[in-house]
């Protein structure tokens, strides 16, 4: 019997995610119709087209570049969530770890004039420290990482605002423009920018984030280290029983997770794309969107690459919707709908499996009917009482 590719878990995940995306777009479209039927079609295509809204190829390339610039940090946050999730931890603190990455990379770049590499490492360190705090609290004090993550998010937000207030002009809430204050802190382009019509923001971050995805996959699936981490995540008592350092592993997981998120921040802020606004009143959404990307990507690092791009793509696409009819939040609405629907992925896969099985059963039944001579069931009397 030939193998049904629909049975492959990866294929199923992909299909399920696609179903979520299509359903999400459809519901979004219906909402648009409700608000104003005349422009709904145009609006939804604008969202989907994103950079394709520009007519010239060069411009398209440039704006594809912009989308990619923001994809890299999103991917990193998604990987941060995914890594922890695979190890049985929910790192909602990724948002704060990301925030710490912003604070430290920008501060080092703007106040101390550090180059990009040390800035990036410092951002990573920031995320790691926060992850470590959550990890220590979890393994030694039994504080749930979700709750410590939420707390730390807020603490870090205020600290970030306080710290970065020192590297801004008095009359502007934004930190200094990096390219002006310290060009050496801008991530190298590696010639990648030239592929995107000399988009100065595109560079090292992109390949680095993809590399990170590969690394996460390899570590989790292929290494002894990943084996240990997942074991600890799934059953920390068993991990202890078989001699793994389960406390260390929990801490390490959150540290790595934090490193990914912190690094993600550096990957955006060290391109000079974004400045920090020093009266920001909530942690950057990147960390939370990372949750979405991780799940839309089927909790698979490679799927997450695509999901991160897609989410960024339609978020950016929202800007091209005709504002006289619809508001920007439309694209947020659509992406959150898609994420909501991602919750049903398990069910969709289950339904697929049931469907496949039913078909197979039918097929085998038919085969049987055809091949078997009328059954001579000798055991008919077995049910009786004696």
């Amino acid at each position: 019997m030939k193998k049904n590719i629909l049975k492959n878990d990866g294929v199923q995940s992909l299909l399920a995610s696609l179903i979520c995306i299509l359903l999400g777009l459809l519901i979004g479209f219906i909402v648009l119709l409700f608000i104003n039927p005349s422009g709904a079609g145009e609006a939804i295509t604008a969202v989907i087209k994103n950079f394709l809204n520009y007519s010239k190829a060069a411009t398209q390339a440039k704006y594809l570049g912009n989308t990619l610039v923001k994809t890299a940090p999103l991917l990193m946050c998604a990987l941060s969530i995914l890594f922890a999730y695979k190890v049985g931890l929910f790192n909602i603190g990724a948002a704060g770890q990301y925030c710490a990455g912003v604070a430290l990379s920008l501060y080092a770049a703007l106040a101390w004039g550090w180059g990009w590499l040390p800035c990036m490492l410092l951002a990573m360190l920031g995320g790691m420290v926060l992850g470590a705090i959550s990890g220590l609290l979890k393994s030694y004090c039994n504080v749930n990482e979700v709750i410590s993550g939420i707390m730390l998010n807020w603490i870090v937000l205020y600290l970030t605002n306080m710290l970065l207030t020192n590297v801004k002009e008095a009359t502007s809430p934004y930190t200094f423009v990096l390219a002006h204050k310290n060009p050496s802190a801008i991530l190298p382009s590696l010639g990648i920018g030239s592929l995107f019509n000399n988009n100065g923001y595109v560079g090292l971050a992109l390949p680095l984030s993809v590399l990170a995805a590969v690394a996460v996959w390899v570590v989790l699936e292929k290494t002894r280290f990943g084996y240990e981490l997942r074991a600890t995540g799934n059953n920390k008592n068993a991990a202890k029983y078989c001699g793994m350092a389960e406390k260390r592993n929990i801490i390490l997981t959150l540290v790595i997770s934090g490193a990914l998120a912190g690094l993600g921040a550096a990957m955006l802020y060290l391109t000079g794309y974004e400045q920090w606004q020093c009266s920001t009143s909530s942690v950057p959404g990147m960390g939370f969107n990372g949750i979405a990307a991780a799940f839309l990507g089927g909790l698979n690092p490679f799927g997450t690459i695509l999901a991160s791009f897609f989410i960024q793509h339609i978020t950016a696409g929202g800007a091209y919707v005709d504002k006289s009819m619809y508001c920007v939040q439309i694209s947020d609405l659509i992406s959150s709908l898609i994420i909501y629907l991602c919750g049903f992925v398990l069910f969709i896969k289950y339904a697929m499996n049931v469907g496949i099985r039913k078909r197979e059963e039918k097929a085998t039944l038919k085969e049987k009917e055809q091949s078997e001579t009328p059954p001579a069931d000798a055991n008919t009397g077995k049910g009786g009482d004696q």
Partner: protein
Amino acid sequence: MDRPYAIEMVHITKRFPGIIANDDITLQLKKGEIHALLGENGAGKSTLMSVLFGLYQAEEGIIKKDGVEVSIKDPNDANALGIGMVHQHFKLVECFTVLDNIIMGVEPTKMGFLQKKEARARVMELSERYGLKIDPDALIEDITVGMQQRTEILKMLYRDNEILIFDEPTAVLTPQEIDELMEIMRNLAAEGKSILFISHKLNEIMAVSDRCTVLRKGKYIGTVETKDTSVEQLSAMMVGHDVNFHVQKKPAQPGEVVLNVEHMTVASKMHKKNAVRDVSFKVRKGEIVCIAGIDGNGQTELVYGLTGLEPVAGGKVTMCGTDITKMPIRKRNILGMSHIPEDRHKHGLVLDYSLEDNLVLERYFEPEFTSRAGFLRRDNIRKYAENLIDEYDIRSGQGPITMARSMSGGNQQKAIVAREIDKDPELLVAVQPTRGLDVGAIENVHKELVAQRDAGKAVLLVSLELDEVMDVPDRILVMYEGEIVGELDPKATTQEELGLYMAGAKRDEVKE
């Protein structure tokens, strides 16, 4: 004595992905009888009972109560029909009191407010009538398994259930508690209640049941009158061949000391008193030493201290001449300690790992399974797992890649035993290694233990089951309230004497 049927399950078929758990089974329960259900691990007993209790829906077949066909879609329906069940794994809310657990689902209320006073009076009355001693205000998490079981039984009685299902109720009880339970079951039956009783222990079935139905691999094998049958016949029906109940072994030839425990003290998590107090003993090569005792007398903590799961509060432990008192678990393992844990779900397995990954849980870091660069050698792991699965007859749906969670308890246990024995240890610490296993599987585990001994390994067995304690080891150490109160030779002692030691009624000053 032709009593009418209380329950009839007729031609029940229940399928799960890839398996027919119940294949056209008919079971008839007479009013007032104790009807035993027997079968190997995974034979389909629990499934059949779950169908009766409404947890599963059968694909085919019907259920009749008092001759009338009924539909049981969920436990609600079962309750309404007077069917109650004590589940294999107790279904008690741990942070609730005994009373709350008993009344849950049929709480007496006035305008929605709980009327606990009323409920308490009834519960206490039932408790007295049936001799089921409980403390209604204790939290479940604080009480012994025995009392939990009594709570479960009271739960059924409180509901006036007519049909009582006991799924392996004795697996976790001490011998005394088992005796009490048997007595209670007889009383209940005498009152006219009908009882379905699942057990792997043939002597219990012989002792208490009126009739016995045997299942094998999801199929109905037959129903026999207990008084007309024998243990041998039952076990033959169950596994399809004869089973040896007594462990065959040559006399032990103890060699040098492998494990030396001196004045070990382990603190207790729950109480102020130490759980293990000043315990000293030795285990030598080529012998099986058994720690016997009633559950809760410090055996668990003793093992935790030996294996490093908990720190030791005082004393010294040496293994093969090395002081391991404070050694990390990993190093103990490498030094040659194997450990079949008491709680397979808590410690023994990563339930969401595949079988193969669980089989290398203690060895994944060895060069055979991990390359220098830290990558797992998947091929070797697969090969290794396949060997073990073959060798130890570990049954599962998809072989090495089966999720451990989906395996039956018995097969999960086999996987752990295989893993721990195949490590070729110097010292094997086996804690209740046969808990919940069917006779065939028990026989296999016992054979393995003896084989280890004969291969010159030291084996420390911890067991609550008297049969096992009498049959398997070469020496018995009895633990009572955290201390070793006696050392016995299984060949020179009786179950009664052992019982006296276990109950604390008798004690020696143990030498050393």
